[in-house]
């Protein structure tokens, strides 16, 4: 219940709700597109294809494990293994990527696909929405300097339980850790509606009108 101290509740605390930052420019629009998976921050495919036929070099391996152990972000390196530094930050996406992501967002939102951050797009981005990404994203969602001890423990715990080094690791050890941190992902898909229409009616005792039951409209 709302906090109050006066007997007549006249001092009910009107919760000071802070407003979500409004998306007003392309930079914020890009953050929105990235957050909901329209811009792929990294391409695991490259790493994966690299990894499937070339091994992780020793130091990357240790580095990877060390970083996951700490519950910090996994290096998002575009250059794949063997690159000089391992702490590669997500590079600023190219303008082309932004435009195609914007078009994809406009398409699925039933907006004119202009590729321009126009008013209709801005309005759509500021609508209330679910926080689950729209597109499959692979990147491990970086914890924002989680300070809650329980977060740290639970992450490292879940990692430890599924640690790569543990000898009795099961097949999907490596990414159980990630799963606890990756929002649900989803890819939209529209299959054709194959509704079956209801044929006419003529009972043995002649026309019987169907009951127009009230339940049609209300639960």
């Amino acid at each position, binding site marked *: 219940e709302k906090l109050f101290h006066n007997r007549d509740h006249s001092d009910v605390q009107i919760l000071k709700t802070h407003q979500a930052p409004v998306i007003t420019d392309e930079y914020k629009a890009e953050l929105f597109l990235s957050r909901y998976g329209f811009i792929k921050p990294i391409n695991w495919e490259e790493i994966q294809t690299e990894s499937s036929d070339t091994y992780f070099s020793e130091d990357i391996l240790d580095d990877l494990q060390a970083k996951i152990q700490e519950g910090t972000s996994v290096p998002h390196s575009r250059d794949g293994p063997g690159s000089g530094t391992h702490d590669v930050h997500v590079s600023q996406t190219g303008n082309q990527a932004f435009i195609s992501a914007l078009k994809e967002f406009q398409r699925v939102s039933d907006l004119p696909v202009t590729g321009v951050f126009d008013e209709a797009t801005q309005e759509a981005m500021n609508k209330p929405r679910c926080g689950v990404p729209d597109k499959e994203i692979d990147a491990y969602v970086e914890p924002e300097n989680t300070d809650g001890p*329980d977060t740290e423990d639970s992450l490292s715990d879940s990692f430890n339980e599924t640690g790569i080094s543990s000898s009795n690791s099961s097949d*999907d050890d490596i990414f159980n850790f990630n799963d606890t941190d990756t929002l649900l992902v989803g890819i939209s898909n529209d299959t054709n509606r194959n509704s079956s229409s209801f044929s006419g009616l003529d009972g043995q005792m002649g026309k*019987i009108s169907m009951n127009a039951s009230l339940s049609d409209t209300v639960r």
Partner: protein
Amino acid sequence: RRKRHLSSLVSKRRQRRDLDQTGFIAFSKSVLKWRLIGEGYSSQLSIEEQRYIFRLAFRMWSEVSPLEFIEDIRSPLEDVDIRLGFGTGRHLGCNQRFDGNGQEFAHAWFLGDIHFDDDEHFTAPNSHSGISLLKVAVHEIGHVLGLPHIYRPGSIMQPSYLPHESSFEMDWMDRKAIQHLYGACRGRFDTVFDWIRKEKTPYGDVTIRFNTYFMRDGLYWLYENRNNRTRYGDPVALQIGWHGLPSDGVDAYVHVWSRKKDYVYFFKGTQFWRYDSENDQVFRQDSEGQQYPKLISEGFPGVPSPISTAYYDRRDSCIYFFKGDKVYAFNVKTNSLARGFPKNIRAVFPPVESGDHPDGNIDAAYFSYTHNAIFLLKGTRFWQVVGSRERWRRPFLPRNGLMPHKEVDQQWFDICNVHPAALRL
């Protein structure tokens, strides 16, 4: 070796995680526990309101899928499959902080956590302001069950919130999406029937209407043939909608309807009741002085009990009672078994395709006004009885022959159970 292990894990995990277009099966069991966690209550609605709304949201998924949900406030939290909570900003040990009032209003996690941004103005169902907590909860539960965002107008899984019409429900495609993951709702029925009743129009005319009902154990569903689904909010407990019937269900329904007779009977065990359709309750004593319940052996001499099921055939004014692999034709005019009965079911209802026959122990015999046909249901299958029209078109078909079987859930859709604890919200 370690490197090889790591890289093989990447590829395996990557494939397994690849969502196919319509989501992924998140749970392998069919009864799931949920809880509104104590540290996650909203400050905007009473706790009871919050729990009621979540109970309703889970029930809505249960009505269209084989899954059942039960609120569990006692087990250790790790035994609870789906945990719901409200928070603002950085909340509940979650990595995805909320952004305040506006934009992101909730999110769901792989392992069954659902968080609601309490900076949003969540409202109870049917209030026309704010964000419907029910609609958001149904959406997020859809994610936890494995559904992705679906950009189809009318889908509950659209990412953006649309101020909902007075009451929203799951449409056909959303139902098929969840059933694509967890299968259609299947199960045997005690009886299926079209309940006929007469209504007076404002002009004094009498119209005849019918509704189709499926009954199983102590539950019933009204089936809306023209919408290819059950009524929103079903199933309902039997004793709520059919006053005076046994609360654990019936074996059969029979409507004897001719120029002179209009009797509705329900059968259970060794007894039967006559139903007063005008007043929507069983007769204790009808206008002819008969008292109910009565013994089947009294009302229908020569018919054994309990019966499997029964139906009335207007063509020969006989009630066909089924028991085991036998069928008993009872002539309501002579008030006695028809000559030569009982017979083997196969003799009276021969298979059109040899080998495709229910044999005995029929669950329900149902004459459908919608399809103008008789169906024999057994388990999750049904056989349609060859009608006069088919025989006129294909004279070689045997009288009362049984067409090859089909699956009940391919003809009557979304007849799903809910957990007994969720039966009455």
